């Protein structure tokens, strides 16, 4: 059990009477890459701003290495932030930008020079010292922003959608860069994004948030394969999200068709939500699957085809590498362990409050 570097305890925050975070608690371990993932307005950025000291919670505590830092001003915290829009000082050179924090700490110039050189090397922008921020591309500016943060050797690096403004290819390159940086530096990263793919690629731990509540905390695999509720299932990746009835342990009925599954302990004849990933729906010849279906549309998506097929009164989304004509009569099959059963929320409030 690694020690917690940061703990959020029952954090609540509202803006203009509107609740943004409600009783949020979260533990972050040393050296973890934690991603706060959720749609806009879910409270992920507010959480990050509270950790960075840019916002004060209405109630609750921020504990860093055992010390309460809830009211500690930003400039005294051992965290540094990489902002979404880079926030490089336009009137300073790259060297001055990176050295900003070190000059405040009154480090000697030789040390600063060495640090700046090291940081530029780390982000692959050697020789940019004398340039001005506006002469750099977006991706380069973001690397400088990262360099400016890490020279201060923060215990935690906060990243607020740092790749949001970059195009796809650059974003993918930067994702790899960030993973590499994280490994080389050995510091805790707290990363905010609304991009589920980014979260799945980079994180050790994903915190899925919605409407100010934590929906699920887990490894990328857990979050993807075993979403705890319909929101998580729907937000992470494509999903066939279905209402169903749990007949008994390991047997679920979807639209009166029975499927064997592996989940237990939901009781008998209980209404549940079921999530089945499109790549887990297998197409078979007529008579060989669980139920018949007819292909109603097919889209080429690059790596796979996305097929919509109608069967047992449901539109199934299927990912497959095999082409099927529209109108093809097929059977569908789903392996028991690919059927993920989730509790149905009992009330509107519980729909978003699934923290245990």
């Amino acid at each position, binding site marked *: 059990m690694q020690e917690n570097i940061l703990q959020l305890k029952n954090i609540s925050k509202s803006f203009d009477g509107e609740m943004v975070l409600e009783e949020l608690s979260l533990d972050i371990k040393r050296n973890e890459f934690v991603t706060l993932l959720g749609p806009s307005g879910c409270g992920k950025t507010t959480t990050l701003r509270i950790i*960075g*000291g*840019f916002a004060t919670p209405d109630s609750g505590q921020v504990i860093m290495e055992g010390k309460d830092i809830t009211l500690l*001003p*930003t*400039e*005294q915290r051992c*965290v*540094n*932030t990489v*902002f*979404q*829009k880079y*926030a*490089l*000082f*336009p*009137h300073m050179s790259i060297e001055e930008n990176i050295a*900003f*924090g070190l000059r*405040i*700490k009154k480090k000697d110039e030789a040390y600063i020079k060495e640090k700046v050189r090291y940081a530029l090397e780390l982000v692959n922008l050697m020789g940019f010292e004398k340039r*001005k921020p*506006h002469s750099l591309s977006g991706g380069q500016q973001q690397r400088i922003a990262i360099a*400016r*943060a890490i020279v*201060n050797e923060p215990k935690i690096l906060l990243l607020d959608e740092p790749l949001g403004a970059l195009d796809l290819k650059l974003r993918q390159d930067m994702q790899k860069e960030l993973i590499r940086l994280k490994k080389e530096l050995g510091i805790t990263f707290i990363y905010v994004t609304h991009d589920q793919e980014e979260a799945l690629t980079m994180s050790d731990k994903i915190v899925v948030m919605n409407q100010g509540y934590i929906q699920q905390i887990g490894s990328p695999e857990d979050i993807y394969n075993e979403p705890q509720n319909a929101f998580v299932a729907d937000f992470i990746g494509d999903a066939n999200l279905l209402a169903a009835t749990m007949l008994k342990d390991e047997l679920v009925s979807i639209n009166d068709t029975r499927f064997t599954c592996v989940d237990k302990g939901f009781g008998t004849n209980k209404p549940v939500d079921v999530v089945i990933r499109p790549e887990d729906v297998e197409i078979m010849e007529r008579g060989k699957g669980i139920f018949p279906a007819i292909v109603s549309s097919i889209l080429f998506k690059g790596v796979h085809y996305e097929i919509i097929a109608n069967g047992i009164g449901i539109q199934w989304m299927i990912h497959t590498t095999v082409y099927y004509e529209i109108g093809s009569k097929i059977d569908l099959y789903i392996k028991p362990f690919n059927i993920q059963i989730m509790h149905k929320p009992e009330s509107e409030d519980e729909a978003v409050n699934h923290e245990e």
Partner: protein
Amino acid sequence: MKRKYIALPYLIWMTAFIVLPLVFVAYYAFTTKAGGFTLSNVFAIFDSLHIKATILSLGLSLSCTVLCLLVAFPLALVLRRIHLNHKGLIIIILILPMWMNSILRILALQMILSKNGILNMILEWLHLAPVEIINTPAAIILGMVYDYLPYMILPIYNSVMDIDQDLIDASSDLGARFGYRLRHVILPLSKPGIISGITMVFIPCLTSFVIPDILGGGKIQLLGNVIEQEFITSMNWNLGAGLSFALLIFVIIGLIFTQKHETKYKESRVW
């Protein structure tokens, strides 16, 4: 390019009311009454009589500019932090005087500051000693500040409001306390507004003659008053034009100086 012709009215306007008058000023400045060429009108600014007015003009304008700056910049910082709804109202109140005639306002100020004026009435009522501020350089500075403060506030307010909050957050994130943030981030980023404000206050102050006339009681001669007298009272257009021309050179030097400090990291010019 037919669109060029749209600019024609302005071209005529500029020629008739800006370029031609300047040409006339230059002509009178470099000629004697008889019509011969001379530099003495322009260099007359260094005469002991005129140099005193020049130095006083520079001194008072500088004081006024500094005072305006000291009021406007902190005000802009405060306004930046205030909640959005009230900001517009405060700015309107501050620039409200701009919509009234300047001479009218200065005359009102004269009433307030005069020996038996409103200020001294209030002081008397409070059992405090009366002040004799009218007809002193202090009264002139007060009038100038009163008159030109909005021209300092507006550009500074605009450039302070334009600073991205992320930049200020970033600087505190990197460990900068308020003083350091102010010196290394907020001030440098407000520079376009500050320079613009200085230009818009210092130059009109330097050339003003109504304010010193009314609040100085005609006893304090600024360069503007000297020029006015040469034209109106002495009817010596050549000397008046020469002094104006010398003043114009001061102004141009000032503009070049401020311009040089600008455009360091932004392409846009202030004015």
